[in-house]
């Protein structure tokens, strides 16, 4: 028990056991959504309850936790979730990607390559990649059972016929292990290639929709595309105004009301590390 009167990690042991069983099955069937008995959490659904439930079931006293929202450690919801775990699990927290053992994220994958021994926990609002095409869960379950992803291929094909491109810029569907169509949670398509054969374990928690899924390390994650229209991740064509990076994903910052704008890294740890290195070199 912690000082607050709640169990370590907030969840009771029965709930953790149920989530842990779901996590192991999720890892054993890469990309398949495992339903679980999600509980109400002290944060609202939509604020990352699924990711929090997963982190709470995985985390131990030796872990070092990093929480990001939009790539940044200092966004209010990231701060709030980090404080929650510091309070209910008493774990060490960090903003350094390389030092973290568990990284809980909303909408981004850090820029630096993750390594073995790290766990990336995604907060997922809609786990079902087909939901815009077929809202019925009973139907999409059947499609996954049959690996019948024709609806999605047709959608992509129609995009290309109309626009010359697939018109999906985030939450771009991926095929995991050559079998399951999966929602990468709404990360920008720019981040999709990082999921492929990642050495770290990727866990996904959707609290309101009560699903857990996973991608084991070194597992193929392919963004759906066509031979003559290969997948193309998009980023703003500019260097970061703070660190100069031409590789990182950028936030657009509006600086005045006359169309003035600049671009800065979305990954705050990546950007500040690069700035520090540059200053040290000068």
């Amino acid at each position, binding site marked *: 028990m912690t000082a607050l009167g709640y169990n*370590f990690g907030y969840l009771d042991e029965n709930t953790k*056991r149920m989530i842990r069983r779901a996590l192991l099955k999720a890892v054993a069937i890469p990309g398949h959504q495992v339903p679980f008995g999600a509980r109400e959490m002290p944060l609202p659904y939509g604020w990352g309850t699924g990711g929090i439930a997963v982190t709470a079931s995985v985390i131990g006293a030796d872990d070092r936790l990093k929480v990001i929202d939009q790539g940044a450690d200092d966004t209010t919801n990231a701060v709030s979730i980090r404080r929650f775990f510091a309070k209910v699990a008493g774990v060490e927290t960090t903003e350094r990607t390389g030092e973290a053992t568990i990284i809980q994220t909303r909408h981004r994958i850090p820029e630096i390559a993750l390594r073995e021994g790290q766990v990336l926990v995604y907060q997922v609002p809609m786990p079902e990649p087909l939901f815009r095409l077929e809202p019925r869960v009973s139907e999409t379950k*059947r499609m996954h059972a049959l690996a019948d992803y024709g609806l999605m291929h047709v959608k992509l094909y129609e995009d290309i016929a109309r626009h010359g491109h697939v018109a999906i810029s985030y939450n771009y569907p991926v095929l995991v*292990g050559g079998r399951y169509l999966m929602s990468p949670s709404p990360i920008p398509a720019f981040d999709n290639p990082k999921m492929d054969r990642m050495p770290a374990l990727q866990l996904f928690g959707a609290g309101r929709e009560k699903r857990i899924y996973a991608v*084991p390390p070194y597992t193929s994650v392919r963004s759906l595309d066509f031979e003559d229209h290969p997948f193309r991740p998009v980023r703003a064509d500019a260097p970061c105004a703070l660190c100069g990076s031409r590789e990182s994903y950028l936030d657009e910052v509006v600086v005045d009301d006359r169309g003035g704008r600049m671009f800065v890294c979305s990954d705050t740890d990546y950007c500040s590390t690069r700035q520090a290195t540059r200053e040290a070199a000068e």
Partner: protein
Amino acid sequence: MSGLTPGFADPVPAAQACFRALLEAMARPGRVHRLAGLPEAPAPLAPAAAAMLLTLADAETPLWTDAGPVAEEWLRFHAGCPLVAEPGAASFLLAACGMPELAALEAGTEEEPHRSATLVLQVAGLERGAGWRLTGPGIETEHLLEVEGLPRGFLAAWAANGARFPRGVDLVLCTGDRLAALPRTTRIEEAG
């Protein structure tokens, strides 16, 4: 209840540490993990296998085991799981004296392949080595594993288990304080 040996000394951190090892094991098939903080399980239970069941089994997970009445009593008391006589009715199976037929275990359905059994199999030896070459999700290129004490015909049964993916049974091999996992996606070849 007399003579019942204790379970985890400190259940919350012990279960977390054991789960973390299992999660790593399932995510990186064939890697051997050594567990610490193990319970004093009665023979013939391997401490690692006992720890795993204390971590994962409860009233919601029917258990089948061939480990005998003392072990059954211990598991019932510490994990609170119902025991079943039919291997096909179990969520977890703990095989200490042989191996139940994989094809007879719950393999889930095409829609719900996660409703499948996990078989905990106690073996005589488990280490990184030249017996098997493992490939599949979780393995960068290939992983070598040496297992002693498996029944004849295991590899054929395992291949059949993998062939019905996404349905299938997942396997955790245990000996002493060590364990390694083989999820249904892992392919095994005999290393030449």
